[in-house]
Structures are given as structure tokens and as C-alpha cells.
């Protein structure tokens, strides 16, 4: 552990691209106190990840860390050394540009209003469907219970996700 603490750089793999950061206070470095949300948004310019509360309570900053949904406003970047991170920008098929099925379902069902909570909800939904391809309505509600949507897009989000799971059953 002591050896680790002396390391002066970390490696993050974000949406399949590998980035090495020095630890430090300069603009393109990562400070020990930097949150993953800050690094993604300000250092890497991936502003699709939204920070709604910066208090770990609204779910809007959700990204996948080795496939697990985490609140990037409550995660220190230095904790993510060596890990795989997926953000909303990484869901499209990089080769074809084809949208992820969840993104497409959200478009088809207008499963958003202002859209600020949407990237976080989509990332949490992706994690849910990855580990449980046919969730029940209760599973979906449970998985998304930490996501604040003030416009109340909930009903259309449920509709969109249920369409995906029903398609798979056919």
C-alpha cells in the first residue's frame, strides 16, 4: 500500500480509450481530491455525465466502473486507477455509430423531458439489463430508485425499458 501511495500517475480506460494522468494540481493532471465526475467533465471534456447535486443523492452523474453503476460525484478519480469506465458517450457502437438499444428506446418513447437526468438513468439501466436481461417492473423501479427526475419522465422511462425486455422475450 505504501508503495501505491507514492505512485505519481494513474491509468483510466474511458470508453475503451486509455488515459494516463499525472497526479497534481495542474489543469491536465488529476488532483487527489478530484472526483471522477470532474475528471470526466473538465479534464476529458466528456460533459455528457451530468452533475445535478454533487451530493451523491440524485443519480445524474452515474457512470459504469468495471460495469457497475457508481456515482461519479462521490468517487475519487485516484480510486479508479486501472479500471474501465463507461460514460454516456461510450454507449454507441464505435464502429457503426449505432445507438445502444436503451438510447433508441428512450428516443422512441420520448422517455425524457429536460434530459438532464437522462444520461444517468440510461447508464443505470444499461447496468441493470447487463446483469438482468429480463427485469420485472419492480426490478427496474428498484434499480432506478436513486435517480431524481423532476420533470417526471418516470412513466415513459418504464415504458421504454419494458419494451426492450418484452422484445427479448419474443
Amino acid at each position, binding site marked *: 500500500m505504501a508503495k501505491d501511495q507514492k505512485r505519481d500517475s494513474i491509468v483510466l480506460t474511458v470508453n475503451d480509450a486509455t488515459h494516463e494522468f499525472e497526479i497534481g494540481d495542474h489543469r491536465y493532471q488529476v488532483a487527489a481530491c478530484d472526483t471522477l465526475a470532474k475528471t470526466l*467533465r473538465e479534464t476529458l471534456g*466528456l*460533459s*455528457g*455525465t*451530468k*452533475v*445535478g*447535486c*454533487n*451530493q451523491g*443523492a*440524485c443519480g*445524474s452523474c452515474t457512470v459504469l466502473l468495471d460495469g457497475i453503476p457508481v456515482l461519479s460525484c462521490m468517487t475519487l478519480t485516484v480510486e479508479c486507477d486501472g479500471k474501465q469506465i463507461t*460514460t*454516456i*458517450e461510450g*454507449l*454507441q457502437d464505435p464502429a457503426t455509430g449505432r*445507438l445502444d438499444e436503451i*438510447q433508441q428506446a*428512450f*428516443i*422512441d*418513447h*420520448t422517455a*425524457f*423531458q*429536460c*434530459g*438532464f*437526468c*437522462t*444520461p444517468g438513468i*440510461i447508464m443505470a439501466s444499461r447496468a441493470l439489463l447487463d446483469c438482468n436481461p429480463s427485469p420485472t417492473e419492480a426490478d*427496474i*423501479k*428498484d434499480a*432506478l*430508485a*436513486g*435517480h*431524481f*427526475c*423532476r*420533470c*417526471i*419522465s*418516470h*412513466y*415513459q*422511462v*418504464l415504458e421504454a425499458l419494458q419494451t426492450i425486455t418484452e422484445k427479448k422475450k419474443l
Partner: protein
Amino acid sequence: MKFAKEYRFIGKATPRKDAVEIVTGKAKYIDDLELPRMLHGKVLRSPYPHALIKNINTTGAEKSRGVKAVLTYKNVPRWRTGTPRHARILDKKVRFVGDAVALVAAETAQMAREALDLIEVSYGRLPAVYDVEQAIESDAPQLYDEFPGNLIPLDVPVFGPRTLSAVVHGDVEQGFDASDFIAEGTGAYENIPNPLPLEPPGVIAEWSGPNSLTVWSASQSACWHRLFMPSRMGFPDIRTISTQCGGSFGSKNYSDQPMFYAAALARATDRPVKVCFSKEEQFGAFVLRLGSRFRGKIGIKKDGTVKAVQGEWLVDTGAFSGFAQAQVAVGLGELQLMLRCPNWDIKTKLICTNRNASGIVRGFGGQELESALIPILMHALEQGGIDPVEFFKKNYVKPGEGYTWRDGNQWVSRSKDYSEAFERGARAFGWDEKWKGWFKPTAVNSSKRIGVGVGVHGNADVGEDVSEAYVRLNPDATVNIHACVAEPGMGQRSSLCKMVAETLKLPLEQVNLTPPDSLINPFDFGLVGSRGTYAVGSAVISAAEDARQKLFEMAAPVLKAAPDELDSEDGMVFIKGKRDKGVPWRTVVGLMHTCTGFGRFEPDYCVPNFIAMFVEVEVDTETGKLDLLRVVTATDVGQIIDPPSLAGQLHGSIGSAGIDTAIFEESVLDRSSGQMLNLNMVDYKWRSFAELPRFDNEILETPIQTHRFKAVGIGEVSTSPGPSAVLMAASNAVGKPLSGYPLTPDKILKALGKIKKERKK
């Protein structure tokens, strides 16, 4: 529905124009924007509810790393916001916990925050007041020298010289004499909930000359900073640009404080400055609902006719009045829409207190007034054993009937009779089976009791104020709509494209709207009061019709026909009925030309909209917990433009300080310290996916005389009937009238005698 079939897009679900940007994270919200050389502004805030700044030392902060400017009341521009102008950008006096004391601009947000800690302030504390009735007592602490008695003037011409601040006509004494049942009392809706859009407010300001300011903001109404701010800040020429807006619900129509801070710091540094509030600032120093207390008397006949309404409405605006006079005016108008009555005597007082200011919130006065008054009305209806559905149906304004609207003028409704919508909603909800009489539960299952309630609301502002638009036809058969319309979530930018695509018979992909930028667009009042569909819609439709007329005039010689013999579809112009002999737009217009039409909408206050809301709740009499089980809304919108967008607006009644303000939403103000105790999203309660009620919408489409699509807007009003409907339902569930919003378990258990009432100090 017969109309929808004739349309390509109107009434059909179409993907939102910005859908791909939103689901891929490419949509740019205010905090996603970076300008070259941009600085970050942060605000030092008062720890005291009422104090004079005795001394302030900024030397340490000025020397702190990265700091470019520190402003206090001593060196800040003398701009003032509020209505009338009274709230200084920074003052020698602070009036609530969280009031701005100093501003810092630095190279990074972190550096600006660090510098705040180095500002030394000594305060001379003053006594504070938080209750409207205490605030108007003779010995109460005074917030402003210019407002003795803490009374903010109501005679401010926000809607012209006769702006409504009271409803007085007929003879209330005679009305009460003629009444069979009279209820009297005080109702209050004072939990000052937060509209709480997920994205906190934010502004970037940059001066391009001494009198020329550009403002980027997360705004609901893209022209508002240009419309309302110049008179507050020495008349600079303001160009406003709205970014994608992460929710507003009224609160981000304008963001006057962040804008003042950013503009002042940008002026001091000659660099662009971004000021984005934190969540804590959004909770504690941005926009709350008005506090509302109504003390009065209502008289009705056995048949449910209202004979007299009398009382005093005490409106608490907090530390300053943002736009409260306008909310008072609209609220008083809306009450008349829901209660037909010949005799009125309602007077209003607008009072300032030592808490964060109230501002614009969806519901805009009417929700506040009705939520306070309806508990009193319930007592009158109970005395008469009158079914509230029958009562509200009978008393909602009918076509041909008049009301005094916000401008103090008389207007006559040419909307429809909404009784059918009301009945459809009642049937869908099963009201007749569930309603068991006043203060009687629908069902009892050991400690759990079910109750039902209903509320109605309407607004005649769907045709408020002015909208202008250009529609430009390009030779390649694409169309640009120039309208200054933001996208805070209603999908209105897409709906306007649908209206124009439908009018011009073009594929929707070929019709787009310019960015919401006041420099490139004519004037639009914005997306307020459900005006997008009718007011903005009318402007873009008439601009499209004007452009098409010009196109036909250009095409007439080519096709050797009169303009009125021509038609256009899919970018071809042809003689009606001879589509195969048409010519493309590019031949008519020419590759180096465009063809532009103009449209303007002038105000029309004669088409009140309507929503009824039925709710079913379950109250656990052991724990006091109140659960919302079912919501049915009922409305008639004339013609649906976009079904999912409309559904979203109606579902939105739960959030944005709507229904849930009767159940758990409140800003908790500690009246000994003036501190708000729940300035975060854990302690401020909100409804999660796991607690959704069953929600259905009954939407009628009876054509209404507005524009070519016969539609009327509805979005803004959906929150308003919710709180009083829940109060009614919970009262029926537990078998006695409840009071006080929100109905948290402690209030319910106290009402049931299961826990002791607090002793008053």
C-alpha cells in the same frame, strides 16, 4: 381524433428534435459550456438572517491564487432587481441566511471558493421575522427602509395600470345573507417548497463593449434577460442565449442574481465569467414558492351556487419580491375561473420576511391561493353535503362568462364547457363508487384507510403576451423557423417544428428552429403559462402561412396561375389538384434567394384552459404515513400536438413543487436561527421510481377557437390542483379535516390525537 388522421405529424408521437443529443450526452447545458479566458464566480453568503455588515476586509482574498476580482457592496454596480426595484446586487444589509455578501472571480471554481474563506466580515446582528402576521406588527424588524411594515407595494404596473391585486365587486354581505352554508377560517400553504429543477441555475456573462452584454443561461424563456434586466442595470444592450435547460418549472425564466453576479464580475475583470450555483445555493438562495395564508369566509347555497367569497390573502415573498405582484394578479384571476361567484371581497398583502426569496414557480399564484382557500371551502361543502365533483363542475367558468383577469380588465371566456372532460375523468377514476361523503373513508383495512379527493384549476394566460417569428423557406425545401424559444423540457421546440411542417406539408426533418438567441430571432415572451401551444404556435403558423403566400406569389407567373390557385407539398409548388405538374421550390425561389414570412401573436385572455385532478390516497393511522395510490387528470386540449410531450407535462404534476407538497415536500426553516435545515437532496424529500402512483390521463380533443390546429396549452397548470386534492383525500381517509401542508406523519398523528400537540412557546 378525426382531425389527427388528416395530419402528418400533429397528434402523433414524433421523436423530439433534440432526442439524439439528449440520449447521447451531446446536448449542451450551461455548465457544459466553456469560453476562452472564462473565469468562475463564487458567492460569499451570510450566516445570519438579518444583519448589517459592519466591516468587510477582502485583502486576503484579493491576494489569493488565481483571483481576478473581489466585489462587495462598496464596489459593485448599483443594479437592483425585484419588483419594484429594491433588491441590490450586494447590500450593506443582509436579509436571509444565504444572502450574498461578496463575489469572487478566479481562474477556477476551486480557487474562487478558496478565496471566499479569506474574506473577513463582521456583522451587526438584527432581529429577524419569519411569519407574515408577525412581520406586519408595529414592532416587527423592518427589512427595507422603503417598505414600512414590511409591506411591499402591490400597485406596481406589472400588467398595466390596473394590475389586479384585489377582487372586489358585488355585495358580499348580501351574498352571505343569501347563503345556506357559510364557512370561515384560515388556510395556509406555507411550506415554501422548491421547484428544484435538477440542473442548478447558471449564467455566463461577457461584455463586448461598455454597454453591450452577452448572457448565456439555462433559461426557460430565452428573451427574459433581454426583456427584464436592462432596466435594472443601466440599460445595457443585452443579447441572451439560452442553452439546453435542465428543468425550470418557472424558476429559471430568468436567473437575476446569478446573472448580476456574472455580469458584475465580467465587467470588473473584462473577461467572461461563469456563475453556476451549487445545489445548496439552489436550495437556500434561489427560488422558493410563495408563502400563502388566506383568512376568510365563503358562502354557498344548497345547490352548490357560490354566493360570496371574502377574505384577506397574506402573501409571503421572503427577502424580496421577484415577481410576486404578477403571481398575486394571476392567482386572483385563476380563483375566479374555478369559483363562479357574483360577490367578491378579497384583498391582498404582500409581505417580506427574513428567508430566501420566493420567485416564479409553476402554479404562479393560483396554486398558492387555492391550496390555502380550499380547506375553508371544504367546510362549506361538508355542511351542505355537496359532492365536490358536482360543485367544481358547476362552478368552473363557462363559455360566455366573464372574469377580471390579471390586467384588471374584464374578459369573457370563449373556451368550451369543460364539464364533459370533468365527467370523463370522474368515470375513469371511479369517483361515484369511491366517494362516500365528506370525511368518510372509501375503504378501511385495519389501520389503513383509503380516501379520495379532487381539485380543479385553469389559467387564461395560455394566450398571454406577444410572440413573433420568422419562417424562412430555403430553395432546397428546408425551412428555418426563427423564434426565440428555449427547451426546458416541454418539447415545445419540436412541437413548433411540427406545426410548421404540417402547415407547409413538408417532412419534419426539413423543418428546424434556430437556436434560442435574441440576436437572430424576433421577440418571444417565452414558455410560461402554457402559452407555447397557442401563443408561440400562432406566431410560427402565421409566419409559415405568410412565407407560403409569398412563395405562391413568386410561383404564380411560373405556373401561369393566380397565387390562391396554388398549393405546395414536399417542396413542390403546383396548381391545386395538379401535383404532377409542379415545380420545385428552388425553381421558384432561385438558388441565391430565400423566402421569408413573418408572424406575430397578440395577447388573448379569452381561452382559459382546464385541468381536473382526482387522487386516491392511503393513510396509515398507526404510523401517520400518507401514500399516493392513484392520480387521474382530466382535460380538454382541443387538439393534441405531441402525445408523449403532453403526457409528460401532466405526469409532471407530481414533481416541481406540485402534488407532493401536500405529502412530504417542504423547505424546513428553523425559526430560531433562520437556517434552512434541508438544503440537500437527501433531507429535501422527493418521490422515487419505487413510489410511483398509478397515473392516468383523460384527454379530450374538442376543437377550440385558437389557431389552425384548434389547440390550447395545458402544461403549466398540472401541478396546481394537486395539493388541495390530496388534503381533501387524506381528510376523507382519516375521517376528519386535516390542515397544514405537507401532511407529514407527525401532522396526521397529531390530528388523530395519537401524539401530543407541541406547546406553543
